[in-house]
């Protein structure tokens, strides 16, 4: 019990910290691509602390508060189910479908909170977010199907273990296709260009986020950090072999090494997304939908069909 609690606490802190670092990395890398210096890597943490310590907060009602809490809670829930190297609180129940759903539901909380403010920008943002979700769901679904059919199991942990003997998923052609599609989907999940339509800074004033400030925004930053961590972690686990290291005799060393391996893989995923985000302009929402329903879907479907053979 205590061990579980400690593990959970560790995962939570680690995920939050690494997530904030990722946010910093994104900002730095983007800045460097733009030939700017960029903020220090810990800048997001500072921002969040500032937000959380605001002396005056406003609310638009109970749902406005609860939605935020729900988003953070659900994100925490999600991260618990994803195997983190050899640490994992609920990885035995880390079902592919469950995790996919859990990664989506924080958005529901944010939507609820944003919409309850009654701000029209939030409404448009919610609409765009949902259409993006709709757009990415098809390739995402096929990618998950491909994985499940290839490995014959839905357990993320078992998939990770299978990769230790069979090699990474992306070295199998059907799953390579799935991984490409999934990576394109990640772009939208991160909310990066060219699929940052739902936030669209400068266009609809951050969309769903427009009304948030103070501690609400702070909580959302934390949620964002954890979600960023969870999404990259999930990808690294299911496509890039996860982080299982058995080279050392000490299990603590193995764990640390595993975390390190995972971190490298996560950063790689992140960087790809950042590079893509930095060079593409924003799509319109129908362009995005048509895009996702075309190439990524075809690729992922092909992968799924091949995997099922």
């Amino acid at each position: 019990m205590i061990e579980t609690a400690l593990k959970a606490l560790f995962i939570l802190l680690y995920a939050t910290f690494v997530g904030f670092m990722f946010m910093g990395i994104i900002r730095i890398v983007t800045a460097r691509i733009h030939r700017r210096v960029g903020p220090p890597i810990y800048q997001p943490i500072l921002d969040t602390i500032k937000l959380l310590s605001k002396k005056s907060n406003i609310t638009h009602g109970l749902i406005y508060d609860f939605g935020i809490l729900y988003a953070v809670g659900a994100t925490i829930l999600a991260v618990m189910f994803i195997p983190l190297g050899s640490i994992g609180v609920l990885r035995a129940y880390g079902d592919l479908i469950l995790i996919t759903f859990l990664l989506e539901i924080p958005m529901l909380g944010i939507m609820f909170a944003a919409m309850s403010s009654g701000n029209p920008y939030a409404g448009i943002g919610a609409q765009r977010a949902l259409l993006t979700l709709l757009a990415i769901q098809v390739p995402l679904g096929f990618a998950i199907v491909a994985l499940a059919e290839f490995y014959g199991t839905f357990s993320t942990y078992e998939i990770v273990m299978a990769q230790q003997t069979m090699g990474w998923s992306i070295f199998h052609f059907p799953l390579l296709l799935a991984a490409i599609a999934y990576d394109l989907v990640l772009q939208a999940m991160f909310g990066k260009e060219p699929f940052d339509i739902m936030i669209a800074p400068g266009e609809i004033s951050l969309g769903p986020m427009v009304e948030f400030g103070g501690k609400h925004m702070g909580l959302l930053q934390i949620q964002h950090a954890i979600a960023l961590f969870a999404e990259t972690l999930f990808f690294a686990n299911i496509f890039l072999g996860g982080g299982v290291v058995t080279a050392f005799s000490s299990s603590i060393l193995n764990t640390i090494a595993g975390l390190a391996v995972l971190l490298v893989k996560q950063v790689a995923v992140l960087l790809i997304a950042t590079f893509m985000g930095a060079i593409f302009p924003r799509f319109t929402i129908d362009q995005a939908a048509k895009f996702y329903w075309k190439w990524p879907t075809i690729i992922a479907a092909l992968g799924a069909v091949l995997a099922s053979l």
Partner: protein
Amino acid sequence: MNELLIIIFAPLLGGVLAWALNVRGIRELLGVAGAAVPLAYLVKLYSELDASGQLSHSIDFAGFTFSFSLTHLTWVFAMIAGVVGLASTIAMVSTSRDGYEWLFALMSLTGAYGVFLSFDLLGFFIFWELMTVGSFMMVLKYSRSAGLKYFVLSVVGAFAMFLAIAKIYALSGSFAFPDVANAVYYAMGRGDLALVFGLFLVAFGVKAGMFPLHVWAPDAYSETNQSYTAMFSGVLSKTGVYGFILIYMLIGYRLMVEFGAFRSAPKFGYIIAFLGGLTIIVGGLLAALQEDIRKLFAYSSISQIGYILVAFGVGTSLSIEAGIYHAISHALFKGLFFLIVATIIYRTGKTTFADMGGLAEKMPFTFAMAFVAILSLAGIPPMAGFVSKWLIFEAVISQNLPILGGMVFFGSAIGFVYLIRFTYAVWFGQRPTDLDDTKDAPLPLAVAMAILAIPNIVFGIAPGLVVKELNKIFGGEIVTSPTLWELNLGFGRYNGLLILVWLIVGLLIAAVIYFLGAPVRKVPVTDTYQSGNPVTMEYNLTIRRNFFLPLKEALAFWLRISFDKLYRDIGAWVEDFAEVMRNYVYNGNVQSYAWYLALILLILAMWGV
């Protein structure tokens, strides 16, 4: 009198009495009693059923033998009818104003019970018709065109079924399910078999709302008493679903033998599953584009039934069990949704999104119920809706059916999409000033909603409860359930309690951070960021129409294809044809009529010689 017959006929009796007496107060009492009695009997019979495995009763009537049977399968479906039927009738206490509605609502409930409990094809057909008529009358009162569309499609379905039944009867000389299954297995030819399957597919497809036979549902579901729609969508559509199980029970083996399998799914099942998948997508996309709250849920209902069809089509024990589970959760959350719609309409008198907004503050209880329903339909763990969807996903994908897998995935996203639309437009945003003194749900509606909301949560956290019953249907551990909270499929696990606990943990952590921060101050809807414009309530701050306009534009090409229009065209064509033919044949000239006689004489002469 036999208990099964009481279960079946109690609602009808209650309805007839309520209609005949038609005294306010007594009418409602009789109606609710009519729906409550069968439920009580079902609960009472549970232990008996558990002991014996099957309770049967048969009577000779009108020269036929009718048999009724309560098995684990039919008990589950009858319970759906019982619970949702009861909730729906309780809600009708608030929304229904005359005996007419009580009569026909309860008549259709009797029909549904009869369909579930019948153990012979003729009884099945008769109750099917009874149910159709009852529900049709409910619709006809509100809209003639919606009613007739519903009725015509239903009757086409029912007659298709009848033809199939007659074919089977001509072969077996009996209607009883065991005899029928035997006769079909040993004696039916390939062509007849395909025909019977096709006819059943149409029959049950219509009632379940399967694409492309779904077109009646949006109109019929919306053009009636919304309390009744809870039963309409929750129970009556389940009879179609149950019909698909009957296909398996009666002709499934033979179809499998005769036509083989596609991958691991039987070929005939794959047809069902594929149509089910299309149903999910079409229903869901159209739901997102509706401007009327009732229609949104009508299409949503269609879409959700698609899941059940996909599950049934795959044809493994696991997938069928998953389908039944989804039938249960669909009945629960969709019943709940329609009661919510009923409450909204009852309190505001409005049905379109454009006229609503900001009701969450005014109707907190209803909103809480809506929240449960939304989470359940959207498939958010740990709700009943998630468990059943999860089971379907696993069942479908584990059978190596990637296309179907993609379809169900798409469906879950589209669920989010239209639900948020509903949430946004009804509960949040700016409230039109004429809704400022809207009250919360009246007591009967509140009770009815609570009846349906509680199982939505319970069956999600403790899926073992349901699975234990469903396993009995198949007589084996299809889904193992080590504890009440946990499901284990071998290749996937789910634990409702753990999710709940950790969600609470997550919420607590978030709450701690939240409460560490400075206190909040409430501001009105006008006090928001509006690009620097000052805003008063005069301005419209909510997107009231065409919320998903970009989706509509992206789908423009596909939206032009309408089966509804096709059927209407066929209908119009038949009417025109009838008109022309009538005027030519019965042209009023007696000499032409004499020629007809001569013509027949000529035919007789040619045939005779």
